[in-house]
């Protein structure tokens, strides 16, 4: 089961993400070169980017249940049909909101939701249900907005997939046939959830600063299914319009043979013309089965692929409606029902494609997106990991072909080569920025694994001792590529990201000097704390508030009040800080100074070494995500061809 199965509800509205941005720049982590200007808002590395005083709040705004879908294929958006429709979707009540944070400045494509709750209730605050979102990070970041995002500054969208756990059902839920059905269908008291976010505002425009649009779906969950992605088939964008980039880059779809139904989540990828999510596509779109295998991937020279009409078997027209209402009601999730048996049969081992007619030619269609080659999908459950030295963590892979678990599939995991250091220069004026992925023996791992009969396989990643390879940033970021033996050229490999923390043994009786660099760095990076709570460079100021710091530093990582909010401290450092607060000694010993910032590793990669293709794409993607690339100009008539 998944968020695309029924019973399913769609909610849409806005989200608030008050992320902090001083920590977007690795050079800002260097205490020696930090200056107060880095805490001021403004573009570029010499200041604090667009929201230096962010507090990492993530919350829902103006979200309502818009539509429900039943197992028999019936959808309704009519509040008279079921009390679930029109109800409020919100976050926590009675405890702080959830948080949205990056794991590290060198890994900014995996913004994670921590401690988010989803509550659905009536306007009179009668609970329908509430659950805790299992921590999950962005996947499938892709281009959404075609207007170049002049008002909001971020044209990309992304997806969070997870489950809601510890569901509490309110008495009122019994009055909803839909919710009763959902409750009876799902397992382990969990629910599948998917949220597609776009239209995020870096800019103080339209009253929407730090808000974006969100399209959510909640469906049943079944035991042993993956959490951070949906066990569905996948399509990848294969058309680059007008020399830009692919649209419809990635989306999930579900094929239900018994129900003779295909359900596709275009809410993840449908191009929108503005930050509010207005649709204005000038062309008809069709879903079809391609009788021949398609492995095309576009590039600048070959931006498009066409398929003859006779190769296509129609599933149906994607009846999107231009404007704001349709996507806001459906979330962009569309089902095709009563598909003829022979077409369902064909779909069992043939690719689904999203096509549009070619103007003036009736015999061929432009392929906007196609299913993964051979229907092969393999994804890692735990793809963002925090590992302390001497600690081992598991990564579970799930492999599928045509949506069914694939046994006997080999999944290869490979650590990327070290990236070079970036020396000081006009483009990097503050501090040397150290590379990633070294020392390469910092992590031990299984590089190859074969899936069992259930299509899953596990590998283990073990943290070996490392000592400040990045000098002023704790630990190291390691990026792994993983894939099945065949890599889909339109999607490429996926990544596992590990933040391996520096070896640091807990100091039982620390003096201020032992924690001073950590606290100063924290105060530098998070002015919301250093300006409003306490001066982190001043031990006396910290001692004055020690009760609240002991409170926050001792919360579990799954507690929304856990400090640090970025959850990037090793257990040794966190415990040392707690030990200091419990018995604060305001002194700096020679010993405490000497063991800081002594890197025992040198980067084996010369600074003029070019990045690999994946690394280069990643670097560009981070810039795009941070809004530090020049905006695309508006593009009109995206698929006019």
């Amino acid at each position, binding site marked *: 089961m998944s968020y695309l199965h029924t019973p399913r509800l769609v909610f849409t509205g806005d989200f608030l993400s008050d992320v902090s941005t001083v920590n977007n720049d690795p050079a800002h982590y260097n205490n020696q070169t930090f200056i107060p200007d880095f805490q001021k808002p403004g573009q570029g590395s010499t200041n604090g980017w667009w929201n230096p*005083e962010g507090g990492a709040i993530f919350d829902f705004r103006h*979200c309502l249940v818009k539509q429900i879908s039943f197992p028999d294929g019936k959808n309704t958006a009519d509040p008279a049909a079921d009390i679930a429709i029109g109800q409020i979707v919100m976050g926590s009540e*009675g405890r*702080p*909101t959830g948080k949205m944070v990056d794991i590290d400045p060198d890994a900014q494509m995996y913004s994670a939701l921590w401690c988010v709750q989803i509550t659905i209730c009536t306007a009179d605050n009668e609970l329908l249900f509430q659950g805790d979102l299992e921590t999950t990070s962005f996947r499938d970041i892709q281009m959404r907005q075609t207007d170049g995002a002049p008002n909001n500054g971020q044209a990309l969208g992304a997806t969070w997939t997870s489950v809601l756990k510890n569901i509490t059902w309110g008495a009122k839920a019994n009055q909803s046939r839909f919710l009763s059905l959902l409750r009876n269908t799902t397992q382990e008291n969990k629910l599948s959830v998917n949220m597609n976010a776009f239209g995020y505002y870096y800019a103080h425009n339209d009253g929407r600063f730090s808000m974006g649009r969100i399209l959510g779906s909640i469906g049943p969950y079944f035991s042993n299914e993956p959490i951070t992605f949906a066990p569905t088939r996948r399509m990848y964008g294969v058309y680059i319009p007008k020399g830009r980039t692919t649209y419809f880059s990635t989306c999930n779809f579900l094929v239900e043979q018994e129900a003779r139904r295909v359900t596709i989540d275009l809410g993840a990828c449908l191009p929108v013309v503005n930050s509010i999510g207005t649709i204005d596509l000038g062309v008809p779109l069709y879903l079809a089965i391609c009788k021949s295998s398609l492995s095309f991937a576009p590039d600048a020279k070959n931006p498009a692929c066409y398929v003859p009409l006779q190769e296509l078997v129609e599933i149906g027209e994607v009846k999107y409606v231009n404007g704001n209402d349709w996507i806001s009601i459906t979330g962009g999730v569309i089902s095709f029902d009563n598909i003829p048996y022979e077409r369902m049969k064909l779909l069992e081992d043939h690719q689904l494609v999203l096509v549009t007619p070619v103007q003036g030619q009736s015999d061929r269609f432009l392929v906007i997106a196609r299913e993964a080659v051979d229907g092969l999908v393999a994804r890692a459950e735990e793809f963002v990991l925090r590992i302390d030295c001497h600690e081992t963590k598991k990564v579970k892979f799930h492999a599928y072909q045509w949506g069914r678990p694939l046994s006997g599939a080999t999944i290869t995991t490979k650590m990327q080569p070290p990236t070079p250091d970036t020396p000081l220069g006009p483009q990097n004026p503050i501090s040397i920025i150290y590379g990633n992925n070294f020392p390469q023996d910092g992590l031990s791992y299984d590089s190859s694994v074969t899936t069992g009969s259930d299509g899953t396989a596990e590998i283990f990643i073990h943290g070996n001792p490392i000592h400040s390879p990045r000098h002023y940033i704790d630990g190291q970021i390691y990026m792994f590529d993983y894939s099945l033996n065949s890599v889909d050229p339109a999607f490429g490999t996926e990544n596992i990201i590990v933040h391996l923390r520096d070896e640091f043994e807990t100091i039982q009786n620390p003096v201020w000097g032992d924690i001073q660099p950590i606290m100063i760095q924290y105060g530098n990076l998070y002015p919301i704390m250093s300006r409003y709570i306490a*001066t982190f460079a001043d031990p006396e100021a910290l001692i004055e508030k020690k009760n*609240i710091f002991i*409170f926050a530093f001792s919360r579990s990582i799954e507690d929304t009040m856990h400090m640090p909010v970025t959850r990037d401290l090793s257990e040794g450092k966190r415990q040392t800080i707690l030990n200091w607060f419990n018995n604060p000694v305001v002194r700096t010993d020679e010993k405490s100074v000497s063991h800081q910032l002594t890197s025992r590793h040198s980067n084996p990669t010369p600074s003029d070494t070019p990045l690999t293709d994946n690394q280069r794409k990643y670097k560009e993607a981070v810039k795009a995500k941070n809004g530090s690339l020049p905006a695309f100009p508006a593009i009109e008539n995206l698929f006019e061809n």
Partner: protein
Amino acid sequence: MEDLYPMLQNAIELEHSTIPPYLTALFSIRPGTSTEARKIVHSIVIEEMMHMTIAANILNAIGGKPQINNPRFVPVYPGPLPMGIAQGLIVGLEKYSLDVVKKVFMEIEEPENPLVLKSVEAPTYATIGQFYLAIQKKIEEIAPYDLPGNKAFQVTSSFFDSALLFPIYTKTDAINAIDIIVEQGEGTSISPVDQDGEIAHYYRFEELVRQRKLIQDDHAPHGYSFTGEPIVYNPADVNPMYPNTKINMLQPGTEEWYNLAHFNKSYFSLLSGLHKTFNGEPAELNNTIGIMYDLKLIAEKLGATPFPGRAGYTIGPSFEFNGQLPV
């Protein structure tokens, strides 16, 4: 004992009603400035929170149910305090100033002020202290020694001295706890400090007005005088929050409106959390502490935000909850 329920509910509401005015003044002081003044207001508001907890603990101890998360609980500012305490003094949400400390905060905490009550049927009390003494007396008269409430509902916290905030299991516990509230607010009849040597709220506010610490002084009447260290306060350290800001003074859909709505949403979340805390889930208190920090951060940012259309002012926290679920 049901007769005591409304009195204790009133006590909870009274203690709470002082918190938004004190917090508004506190949040208006720019972070990192006028530190001494900030510390004094902070110390008082924290004790008001403790008093609110004590009142809720007593209500729970006698079998009542504190009601926190409904619009009737939320005072309208500017307006009188619950039961018209402090002779109907009109209390608003204003930035910190010596004037507001003297004319409002000291009046709230004034030991000798008689109470003017809203309802003619209600018993009348001469002072806040007498209001609590009446509760004490009634408990003495009608409560059994072992109080009937569910012991698991009592709220304590590592943030407070366990000698001040303790579970109320017996009649004696309740009586002792009320003494703490009265003495922290007023001092004793012969001294500005309570039995633990802590300066009462009224005199701590007076320190702010006189801009001098109150210290022991053997030559002075009652043994204390305002001759201690100066309390440095610079009016330029205070953000000019618009008095009694309301959300409807802002244009809906603007960034400023959303930020104030965010504040009010968090305030509602806090009331909901406190309601849970005082109705059988005492461990929830920890979660409410996180929301209190959220409120502080949002309010201080608002306080630095120019008020659109009201030149020279910034936006104040409005502490509004009208019963409509904030979305």
